[in-house]
């Protein structure tokens, strides 16, 4: 493993949303800060910086991961997807559209992380139950919606009807 010097910046290369990116980071720079402030991808948000709220979730090589609890240099060479990858130009993808239809967001600060977790979740669990959706969501905090719209949106995106939980 390469040894990095603590107080100098190192070049970090990663593929983000299908494009090759290069930036510079001290070894202690968090991946979330690198994505936001070095690469200018501000769609990923930071809500707690201690791994609980899930706002900063991105996909690293397809796996949902907290970008606030790992360093940018650890993701050197990785392929990362952020919320900016989801829509096709101006057209929302099915999950985003379901969020919009089900009023699954209010302030939208938690949304990017939830969309990324849900994206990976639906790939693994294409026909989830409501309980499975809620379990997956329990890794995220949303203070606005009470989660109801989010649950419905994810079920709708999966093509599953909400089972009597709709308010």
């Amino acid at each position, binding site marked *: 493993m390469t040894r990095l010097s603590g107080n100098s910046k190192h070049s970090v290369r990663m593929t983000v949303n299908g494009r090759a990116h290069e930036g510079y980071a*001290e070894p*202690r*720079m968090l991946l979330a800060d690198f994505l*936001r402030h070095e690469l200018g*991808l*501000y*769609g*990923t*948000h*930071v*809500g*707690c*910086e*201690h791994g*609980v*709220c899930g*706002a900063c979730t991105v996909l690293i090589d397809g796996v949902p991961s907290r970008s606030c609890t790992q360093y940018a240099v650890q993701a050197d060479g990785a392929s990362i997807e*952020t*919320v*900016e990858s*989801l*829509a096709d130009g*101006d057209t*929302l993808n099915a999950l*985003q559209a379901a*969020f*919009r*239809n089900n*009023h699954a*967001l*209010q*302030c*939208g*600060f*938690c*949304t*990017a992380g939830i*969309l990324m977790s849900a994206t990976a979740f639906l790939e693994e669990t294409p026909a989830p139950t409501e309980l499975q*959706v*809620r*379990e997956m*969501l*329990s*890794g*995220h*905090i*949303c*203070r*606005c*919606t*009470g*989660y*109801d*719209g*989010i*649950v419905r949106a994810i079920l709708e995106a999966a093509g599953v009807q909400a089972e009597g*939980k*709709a*308010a």
Partner: protein
Amino acid sequence: MAETEVPTDGSSGKPGRWPDRWIGKSVPRKEDAALLTGSARFIDDMEPVAGLRHAAILRSPYAHAKITSIDASAALALSGVYGVVTGEQVAEYLRGIPSVVRTPIRFMPIAIDKARFVGEPVAVVVARDRYLAEDALDLIEVEYEPLDAAIDAEAAMADDAPVLHDVAGSNVAGHRTIINGDPESAFDEAAHVVSLDFHIQRYSSTPMETYGVVANFESVPDRYTVWSNFQGPFVIQPLMAGALGVPGNRLRLITAQASGGSFGIKQGVAAYIVLLCAVSRILGVPVKWTEDRLEHLAASSAATGRSGTVTGAFAADGELTALRFRNINDMGAFLRPPEPASVYRMQSTLNGCYGVQNIHTENYLVVTNKVPVGLNRGYGGTQFFYSLERFMDHAARELNIDPVDLRRRNFIDKDAFPYETPGGSVMDAGDYQKCVDELEARADYQALKKRRDEKRAEGKLYGIGIACAVEPSGSNMGYVSLAQTPEERAKSGAKSGANSSVVISMDPSGGVTVQLDSTPNGQGHATVTAQIVADALGITPDDVDVITEIDTMTSPWSIGSGNYGNRFSVAVTDAVVEGADRVARKLKIMAADQLECAVEDVELVEGQARIVGSDKALSLTRVGTQAHWNPVNLPDGVEPGIYETTTVTADLDGPTPEDTVASSVTYGAIFDLAAVEIDAETGRITIEKYVSVHDVGELLNPKIVEGQIIGGFVHGLGGAMFEEMTYDEDGNFLSGTFADYLCPTAMEVPDFEVGHVPTPSPKTKLGAKGLGDGSSMLAPAALTNAVADALGRADISPPLTMPKVWRWLQETKA
């Protein structure tokens, strides 16, 4: 709730098939696309001025300590550190902010010679980046002389308690008694007197986005420019300017495009705005600071903690004839403006949903070594309705009357509206009996009571709790001065009303833009505004752009501006309706001129100005843009351009010499029922049922209403079950992460059923009432009532955590 999608581009409606009205429909939100694609910009996404440096804040590790020295030399020697600013330096540029309460205590956003709570700022480091700034914090040597701390509010009132503010000499920063009616006689004549001690903890709304500030001082002329996620009330702006010693036009506040939730708490960013203004001035650089989660939990703002006693007098038939409240309010280390507003917001609706005429209230404002209180969802309502509705359930049990029935016997009658309360509020409209009919039907109350009997027969712990509230909305800016005596008020100048301002314009290409003064944080104000304007101008919501950022140098605003007190749907919408009507009138005059018809014969529909009942029409764009391109030939009396600024105020006067005041424009109502089962072995609570019936007046956008109601309930659920800002007896803060401060996740939210019994408000142009607080004010009361019913004891307090319930179970067994 099943809602058909309403396209917002008019495509539902080829001409002739447009909806009659956009208002009242679940129009999808204008805000969503930017938020869903990650392109909305929040304060931490902004670098609005070149040369930004980054601040980190050194905070007191002690609840109460003298600061004897600060040595920043090692921090200053660190390469990349631009400067360190201490409280003493800040004090040269910043005056303490007074409260309306006559006390010598002044709020300062940084400790000067003494720290008064864990997390209070002590010094600010400014460096090249935040990482470095935080390194430098570790190098600052502060010598503290720890003092005994006053943590519990009741203990802090004792003569021998450690005193926070030597200038005040006591921790009781305010004490007022207000009497409406003749409670003394009513208590003398009562058939029954019932009393309940209560306590509700301090918790916090914790939006997902924390505070953020960019402050820039420019000299010649001296001017502070601040970008932040401040959300008002903008009555704080003149206080901030006063603290900085500049006229209001030299403190320019600009809000970010998007704000990641608030629920009131972002009012508290004001403290950091003035602090960072002073730091920018002292160091001569623009400074950016983003609060981290620990800082937010420890040091932003708490909801007021309250303990005390409610006593009520009842006639033999269960009529509530008088109420007496004794409230000890835990204000934290300062009375930070707009406090003590949390204590007085409900003062004129202390009757709740009931017709009780005689009310005695005594409030103590106690300072303690904890973070100061401020706006948090439910603001003052949570605390008040917790006490009143716990009392009502308890009284029902004491009087052996069904708790729903006891409330029914006391509700204000639907024919009594508009109803003047003993405290001076004029409640606009409501039908509380019908609301409770709906609640009973949805909850199947009779069957639920049977179920309780059956469960109990099986030896299970099962309880039902009821709670109801009125929801004051659109605050009178004068109510806070109830904290002063009538004599003090007479000296300090009258305050009243609730201004709202809006600008509606049509540009030379026909684009319609609305500028609001409501600084939303996720409530969909842009969408509802576009619905209103689309109705007035005969266009679609997609045709209307809405700007929600405020810039105090270029936007119309006033002290009432901001997002608080359920203001939008009652006060701001009135300004939008009025402004849109003015623009519509102007367009009709211009169209009549071009169509050569009478103004009354013009209608604005389907993007056109049309002669009613004909197909003679002009496109609205063609009509309106004449005001820019051809101003010389406008009809007589029509001003060039379309740029309509409208400010309206609610007709709410300040407090009377009798201490009454109409605190709000509208008074919605909420009726909640909770049914719980408690596991006798573990203390685990299962919420079997939660039903909530709301009167929000007209529903402007049902889907947005639904979202607010569910979100409000989950805040109340958090306060009832999990959330508490905890301190040990020395004042060390114990809930500084989301692993310690537990917010509900999707797994903790029970089935939640909502019913509506809307009575349109005669006080607002659209008939809407406010709804943002909702069950955040009631769930702690309803759920604690249910648990009290299950346990058969009233002396319990939230949060109803498993260890606490388990302890109560052991006590009951013993």
